[in-house]
């Protein structure tokens, strides 16, 4: 048996004790609040990032779906799990969703922190975010520019490959599209998933069962914020329009609206603001 020196044993004991008593490292804490976002300048080569101060703590606001960023002049609703130890925008990251409170203008939300050099993002180079094959081509073209400047006019960013054909056996497909508070705009990535489902249905046949919900959020301060009435219906109407525009016929889908807000619990309430789509392939 290996014997640890007393100092190491003590350190391990302290870590275990901290974990057990605080619970925070083992299970992430949920939070939900509405506040002014603060923009933070992170240098001349970067977009700004956003943070929020709440209950004496500073959180980095992470926008998982991309392009649903907070706005000065508007409050933001932040819902998610606090990821202790993970930093974003120089502050503790919250993994969840952001909703801009668009209905009201809040002129007091107007703070931009100047760049103090403490936060830098990884390389903003678009090419580093592309698929490997595309990236290789782009870098190759860049290497040619010195000898052949016209290479700088060749396309560097490509359309993604089309969805591959779907083969049987066809199985039931499920998808949830989530929406910001009081909003009908779904996100780009979720829309892509819906497009895949429609592509799938071209092979599998079948019927779409759509359910539209609206939600309420229990904030940390106990207040419950409900989406405006009729939101689920508005989402459903817009979604039906979307399906028709994407080539479906009315007989290809059914839509059910859940007009009452799903009750808030204070944990992951944002998941209730959704449209669920189920594709049941033809027999």
């Amino acid at each position, binding site marked *: 048996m290996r014997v640890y020196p007393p100092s190491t044993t003590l350190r391990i004991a302290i870590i275990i004790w901290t974990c057990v008593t605080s619970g925070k490292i083992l299970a992430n804490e949920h939070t939900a609040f509405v506040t002014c976002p603060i*923009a933070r*300048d992170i240098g*001349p*080569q*970067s*977009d*700004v990032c*956003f943070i929020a101060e709440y209950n004496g703590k500073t959180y980095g606001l992470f926008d998982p779906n*991309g*392009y*649903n*960023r*907070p*706005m*000065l*002049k*508007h409050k933001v609703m932040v819902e998610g799990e606090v990821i202790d130890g993970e930093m974003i925008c120089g502050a503790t990251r919250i993994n969840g969703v952001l909703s*801009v409170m*668009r*209905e*009201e*203008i809040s002129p007091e939300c107007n703070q*931009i922190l100047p760049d103090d050099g403490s936060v830098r993002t990884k390389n903003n*180079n*678009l*090419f580093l975010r592309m698929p490997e094959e595309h990236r290789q081509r*782009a870098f190759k*073209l*860049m290497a040619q*520019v010195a000898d052949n*400047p*016209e*290479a*700088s*006019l*060749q*396309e*560097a*960013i*490509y*359309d*993604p490959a089309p969805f591959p054909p779907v083969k049987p056996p066809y199985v039931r497909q499920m998808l949830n599209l989530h929406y910001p508070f009081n909003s*009908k*705009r*779904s*996100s*780009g990535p979720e*829309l*892509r998933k819906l*497009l895949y489902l429609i592509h799938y249905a071209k092979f599998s046949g079948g019927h779409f069962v759509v359910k539209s919900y609206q939600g309420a959020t229990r904030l940390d301060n106990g207040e419950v914020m409900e989406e405006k009435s009729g939101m689920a219906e508005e989402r459903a109407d*817009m979604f039906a*329009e*979307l399906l028709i*525009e*994407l080539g479906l016929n009315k007989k290809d889908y059914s839509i059910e609206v859940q007009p009452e807000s799903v009750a808030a619990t204070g944990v992951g309430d944002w998941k209730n603001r959704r449209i669920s789509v189920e594709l049941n392939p033809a027999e």
Partner: protein
Amino acid sequence: MYNKYLERLTKTCITMLVCFSVFLANAAEQSGSWWSPGDDRVFPRFSEYQNASGRFGIINTAGPIDTSKHPFFAAKGPNGRACVTCHQPSDAMSLSVSTIQQRWRDTKGTDPLFAAIDGSNCPSLPQGKPESHSLLLEKGLIRIAMPWPPRPFNGKPIDPEFSIEVVRDPTGCNLDPEWGIDSPSSAISVFRRPRPVINIAHLMELPHGVPPFNNFFFNDAMPLPKGPDTGLTVPQQLMADGRGLTPKYQATDAALTHLQLFDALSDNDLEEIEAFERQIYGAQSFDNLAGDLTSPESPPGLGPQALVISPKARLGNNPLNKIFGEFSMWASTADESQEVQQDKVKAFKASVARGSEIFREVRFYISDVGMYNDKGLGNPFKRSCGSGCHNTLSMGMDLSPGFMDLGLNNFPWQNRRSDLPLFKITCRDDVQPQSFLGREIYTHDPGRALITGKCTDVGATMTQQLRGLAARAPYFAGGAAANLRELVDFYDRRFNIGYTEQEKADLVNFMRTL
């Protein structure tokens, strides 16, 4: 002695020859500058037209066209105008205010361009007096009568989210009993610059590499509209408010309004117009200081050929494309040892190269822009001219398509204009407000909102391509910037950028070569 005489003679002859050819060239330009409907001219494969800082070049990929009967060039309607009246080859297929003034002088205001319907401040005014055409003569603005409430768009009826009140009506047209908002035909008159009908093939291509927004409108994540004549998804890049869904649909509307042609253009005419619009490519081809912009030593993104070879509707804000391609070959600083003129040329080229870099690299806080910051980009969005909005390869359009209220139409940002109508927009309580101005908005042009009826869209108009700028001042849809310097100054003020004098000059020099 003899030799000296011969030398002098030769010199004189050369001088005379040069003078004569300059005279010839000028004569050609004179007849070539204004293109009247029905001028039986040939539209060649390649043509160049003089402007203040050089020449604008047009490549017509289909080869020479006899324009005598061509529907873009022939007067089809009763007012004697053709499309070419407002889309002049010499003005990058738009119309500069200096050309308009020249035309007024040359024809004493009788050119069909000044037709009462939209070439005057209002058809009810006494025609032929400069005061009645002041918006066209001073700012290059054409009256556009938008139906109110909006007509169905993309097959859907529009229920406007706001009411409109005319607060100030300097042209008299919005309160006019025959033409105004309360007239039987109920219309809102706004005044806009002709957009350049060039490189349209680029504008008609759906965006690449931005899934799923190749087929979806970024702002609402709903499918982009379909062309009424084609049934195909359209990129929605035509006209300040995106209402020109396809070239044919747009031309039908243009014929009805500008040409007062009440029988629709024939299918054949529409085919010819669309084909023409899609086959002409243009850019500045010669600069008075930099010289030939099409030479192999020039940046590849300059000159009209760049538009022919460049892939269409691609994101250009990346390290390879740099929006308008590579400019580093001009980046060298002026060489002290060269003679003065050579220094000037080099210094100018270096300035253009710096301008291209400032355009794409110098970020600033883009803030409180309706229909832009609120589409998910965040407020502020810290970007450059090129990475913020003018991101399409070789064109500098917004690939999105980018409708936005820069503050040129809506108060409080713009330079208040006493020459334009002022409207008060009041949005219903139950709708989403304009993100930064709320539910009560004062505007000179409600823009996109006259199409969609949405409060969030009030004052938003769409980015324009940045080609042929030298040929078509003034700039912005309402003609707010008389020249490129004023345009740069507007951005500098609006977004508190703090460009240095040198940076401003570099941007201006860069843009004049596009």
